């Protein structure tokens, strides 16, 4: 059996990649993908612990998270389209007017 630590290492790696993606990428689409990556790393942790502890709560939450993530992705993509229509770019650094 694969030890729980292996799952956790993969989850942390995925989460770290997601965070780095958000920090480094200029493309809004890629940022959204990185956010999905972070969500799914959390899902992976939930499922892993569900199996180890033999309870179904984690499974239930993961389904919930997947549903919400799907909805969120739909809304987020719609916003990206609107942003593109306004500025003809999806470079996140161009959307920096929300300051002092």
């Amino acid at each position, binding site marked *: 059996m694969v030890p729980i630590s292996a799952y956790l290492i993969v989850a942390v790696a995925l989460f770290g990649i997601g965070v780095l993606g*958000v*920090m*480094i990428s200029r493309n809004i689409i890629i940022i959204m993908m990185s956010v999905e990556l972070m969500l799914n790393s959390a899902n992976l942790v939930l499922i892993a612990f569900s199996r180890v502890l033999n309870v179904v709560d984690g499974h239930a939450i993961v389904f919930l998270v997947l549903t919400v993530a799907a909805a969120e992705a739909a809304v987020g993509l719609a916003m990206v389209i609107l942003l593109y229509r306004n500025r003809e770019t999806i470079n*996140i*650094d161009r959307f920096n*007017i929300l300051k*002092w």
Partner: protein
Amino acid sequence: MSEYIYLIPLLPFIGFLINGLFLGKISRTLSGIIASGLVGLSFIVSLMLFFDLKALPADSRVMEQVLFTWINSGSFHVNFGLLLDPLSAVMILVVSGVGFLIHVYSIGYMSHDKCYGRFFTYMNLFTFSMLTLVLADNFLLMFVGWEGVGLCSYLLIGFWFEKKSASDAGKKAFIVNRIGDFGFLLGMFLIFWNIGSLNFHDVIQAAPTAFIAGGGLITAICILLFVGATGKSAQIPLFVWLPDAMEGPTPVSALIHAATMVTAGVYMIARTNILYIMSPDALMVVAIIGAATAFFAATIGMAQNDIKRVLAYSTVSQLGYMFLACGVASFSAGIFHLMTHAFFKALLFLGAGSVIHSMSDEQDMRKMGGLKKYIPVTYWTFFIATIAISGIPGLSGFFSKDEILWKSFSSQYGHPIFWVIGFVTAGMTAFYMFRLVYMTFHGKERMDKETKSHIHESPKTMTIPLMVLAVLSVVGGWVGLPHIFGVANHFEHWLEPVMATSNHVAVQHALLSSGANASAEWGLMGASVVLVLIAIFLARLFYNKKPELATNFQQKLKGLHKLLLNKYYVDEIYGAVIIRPLVYFSLFLWKFIDVVIIDGFLNGMATLYNDISETFRQGQDGKLRSYATIFAGGVILILFYFLME
């Protein structure tokens, strides 16, 4: 009748309200009639109350009316109370009587002015304040009137405020008076501190037990009150505002700066004579200041060329006489001269106003001359006032001035030096007054053709008050004939209840030595009459018969003439010694303390926070990626913190 005292100040106040609230809404004629009429009514009420007072027996001649409690705070209790006794009766008659005549005169004099209503508003407010001042039964209410007349003086000197010199003169009067008022206030505080009341009656009752006669405390109080009097009554060292006050309309100079307001200081000292009599040192100060002012102002008056300035210095000089009288503890002589002076000086100013009016606002005597035949009524009334002030026997000024001279010689507080100063001053008074008359009314006509064609006698509203005042200037002195004429001095007798304790000494003194001194009094009187006649003769020689003599004389004494013409450079000295350092000190406070230190500190704080904010603001750059980085960094730090525990 005593319940009607309040009407005396109230009537002019009603005039003030009507004229002030309906300014510009009522016609000019109506405004003048209301203003003069109400002051006239006030005079009638004063006259009726005077006769009521006279009907009472001499020792109970006091009427009081407390209208309401004004301040009641702990042990501090002040009523709005009016006090009518022989002293205030004289004052209200002078103020409302002369005031009424001047109001009537103003109807004619101000007829060409565009701010007619405003003028009468101020004049009525002044009359109200002055009557409050003289009728007050306590120091604080007196101070209210005192400040009220000061305010009106400021407003009326600066009446033609478009002219810079007029508004400056107003400010000067106000500020100089403020210095005097400071002394008055301190004196009042000391009185309250030691006696616990400001009511005249209480103070007079308590004074003999509360103070040690001749002690430092009573002297301090008297000197502080006298500082207030020097401010209001234009004595050395605070006389500088009065000559400048001539920037105001001439009726104002007559009413405020000759007849009434400037005598408030004399009135105040006479009112508190019980305190002064307890402090011989303070009396000495009053007498010295009075004599010095009388002398120096008269010397300045001899060299001035502006008709109103001569009269202004003459006023200062005559006020000096009144203080000299008070200083030798002869308060009734001071009040007597106050009254006669109010008549003839008001007449002189109104006559000068009439001259100025006919000369199309020319005030320089060097551009007048020979006016006698053009404006005869003005000339004759002016001439009567001139001989009255000069001290020609039979006229009011002679009796009052001679009484002061005699008292300054004979009183136990007097001294022959005071008499000599007063005597010389009397000569100078006659000289500068006749110089004025000769330069203005006699001799060559020195005005230009344009002005000459406009010369006209003033309208009836102006000449009638002149004539009434001329009569008063003649007969006004007959109420106080000296003892040596073999008749009782009614005026002194009338004021006796108010001055009882103070006059007691003087009266006894006079009785003891009356036989021996009668010849001395005749002699001194004769000497002053001779001196006056010589002075008149000299003035006639210099300014009428041989004008070149006067010019020669001026050439010879060039330095002295320049000194006098420039009023001993007093304004310049005050400017250099007091005002300039004050200005520099203020500049220091402004430019250094305020701008550098206080503003510097506040601005420094603001700059500091601004800089800190600027630094931190850089972090908020609006870029999502940097926010995410900081956020992630924060999460990592928190995680570390928990893991380390």
